[in-house]
């Protein structure tokens, strides 16, 4: 068990393609870090650099205080779970789990003990002598995790481990991974493109975009204080509404409505509002309703404010009129620079939200 340190880590592929640039990150011992971002953002490359499957072009990665840049994957004291499981098809579940230990010349009884422990933890006992092809997707995924657990590594690396499972199983396995990691207290790096998976699993999230870190922080911190429009648009379902607005005379103006005071440069600004922060009221910002997604526990209303698409989260209830008037609390506004997409931290007179809702 150990921390992982990234220092200015970068990866350049042949042809000067920068897949990862200047990633600096300190992962504490036992922490569950999720690397999240759209496909092609470099999250898998970053993980594979930790694993030793990709060379590190610049910077340094250390595991447990030891620089691992030039170490073989086998010597880095990590275990990896792959998206397609990568189980050895000709070996039984037991052999699959034991293979890494056998190669390390672990004593036979020690191997048997660890495999049995892992099998009990993952409820794989009845399947130990089966071949992977005789298992379901969820069971295969558990075998892949078992293979990682028996090694008792310094860190687990997960590369989109749940993408091949159906939605229901994915939720169940998500919980299982989280419980398992808490129980073992092993540092974990987890790559996913699914923001929901990222939010629910992570102690801290690392949002990547185009090979760069956009923001690092706890899930709710990112949710409530996105540092860029990219993070705002990526985290949360529905994503944060991003609207073109203006600051005029120290007020945030949208579609001719005054939404509250703002400091900062006059002119165009990107306004972010969470779908659940807008409430229908007697008077307010006019919104044209386009269509409604009923989710049972709530509903998502899609429409437009001033011709810009907007999603609104409401409690279930009566049918909606074609036009709504919305009230938005001034504290619920997020302002971003229109060109750089960066948050304007001092533009609003107080933090966008105080306290963390239960």
């Amino acid at each position, binding site marked *: 068990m150990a921390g992982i340190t990234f220092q200015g880590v970068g990866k350049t592929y042949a042809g000067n393609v920068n897949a990862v640039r200047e990633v600096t990150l300190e992962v504490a011992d036992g922490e569950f870090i999720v690397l999240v971002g759209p496909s092609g953002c470099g999250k898998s490359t970053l993980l594979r650099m930790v694993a030793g499957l990709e060379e590190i072009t610049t910077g340094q990665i250390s595991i447990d205080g030891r620089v691992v840049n030039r170490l*073989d994957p*086998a010597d880095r004291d990590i275990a*990896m779970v792959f998206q397609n499981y990568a189980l*050895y098809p*000709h070996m039984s579940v037991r052999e699959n789990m034991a*293979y890494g230990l056998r190669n390390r010349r672990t004593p036979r009884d020690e191997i048997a003990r660890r495999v049995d422990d892992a099998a009990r933890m993952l409820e794989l006992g009845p399947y130990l002598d089966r071949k992977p*092809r005789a298992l379901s997707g969820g069971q295969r995924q558990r075998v892949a995790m078992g*293979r990682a657990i028996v090694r008792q590594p310094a860190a687990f690396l997960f590369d989109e481990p749940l993408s091949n499972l159906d939605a229901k199983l994915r939720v169940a396995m998500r919980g299982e991974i989280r419980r398992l990691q808490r129980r073992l207290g092993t540092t974990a790096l987890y790559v996913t493109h699914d923001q929901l998976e990222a939010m629910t699993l992570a102690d801290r999230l690392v949002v990547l975009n185009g090979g760069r870190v956009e923001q690092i922080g706890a899930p709710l911190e990112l949710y409530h204080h996105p540092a860029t429009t990219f993070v705002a648009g990526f985290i949360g379902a529905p994503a944060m509404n991003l609207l073109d607005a203006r600051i005029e005379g120290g007020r945030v103006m949208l579609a001719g409505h005054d939404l509250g005071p703002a400091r900062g440069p006059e002119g165009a600004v990107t306004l972010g509002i969470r779908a659940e922060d807008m409430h229908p009221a007697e008077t307010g910002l006019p919104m044209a309703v386009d269509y409604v997604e009923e989710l049972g526990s709530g509903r998502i209303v899609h429409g437009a404010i001033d011709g810009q698409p907007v999603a609104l989260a409401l409690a279930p209830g009566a049918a909606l009129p074609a036009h709504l008037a919305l009230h938005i609390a001034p504290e619920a506004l997020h302002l971003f620079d229109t060109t750089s997409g960066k948050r304007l931290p001092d533009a609003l007179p107080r933090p966008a939200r105080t306290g963390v809702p239960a």
Partner: protein
Amino acid sequence: MQKIKPLDHLILILGAAILIVPVLMAFASSTHSAAEIHMNGLYLAPGSEGVATYHKVLTQRGGFTGEVTGARMLLNSLILGVGFAVGKIVLSMMAAYALVYFRFRLATPIFWAIFTTLLLPLEVRIMPSYQVMSQLHLLNTYTGLIVPLLASATGTFYFRQFFKSVPDELLEAARIDGAGPVRFFIDILVPLSRTMMAAIFIIMFVYGWNQYLWPMLMTTDEGFFTLMRGIKTILQVWVGSQIPDYNEAFALAVLAMLPPLLVVLVFQRMFIKGLTESDK
């Protein structure tokens, strides 16, 4: 339910007959005496001389020196067939492993160089090969018979394609599991290639079994005669009033068919099993 189409069946039956009748004819004729065959032509019904003919063919010493028996020739053919098949599989697997998994410059040109040799049949290089073996004093040895033909572009090509279809994650998982290049090859690739090996074994065994020109050049000692040469020898006695021992030639031909048939039957089952059980 599907309708039975008489015409389709007729075509299938005809096709089967075309393939089977010559074999039946060879077997039936081998159970008649040479004189009967010479007078009446080929037979479709078995005769009475079968046991005697096969016994004679397997045990009687023949050839110019009167040293070599049918059993001996059968053994030689087997050694050649198995030696070819096993040697080619081992060699081409290792070559393909190097080509696919090791990043070295010119890997692709080297592969294409190997691949183009597919276009050159053995006969093209048979004289230089002979000379090399002769200078190495390997004429009339099993080594000389087998080794020069071991390099196999076909096998290398098949294994290369197969290795390329093995998911990269398997290699990566093995690397993280601490398996070095040799370990990965033996523990993962070889077991995964079983079906491929069976397929190549069938092809190469039959190829080796049917070799005619090369053994004829390489060996003068009749102790190294193969079945193929044995058949030829029997039919070469057209001198004076002697008629060739057709029945013996047929008997040898039937015997020559059995081992490849056996190999195909055994490995085909494995081959199909491997294909249908794969989970990809």
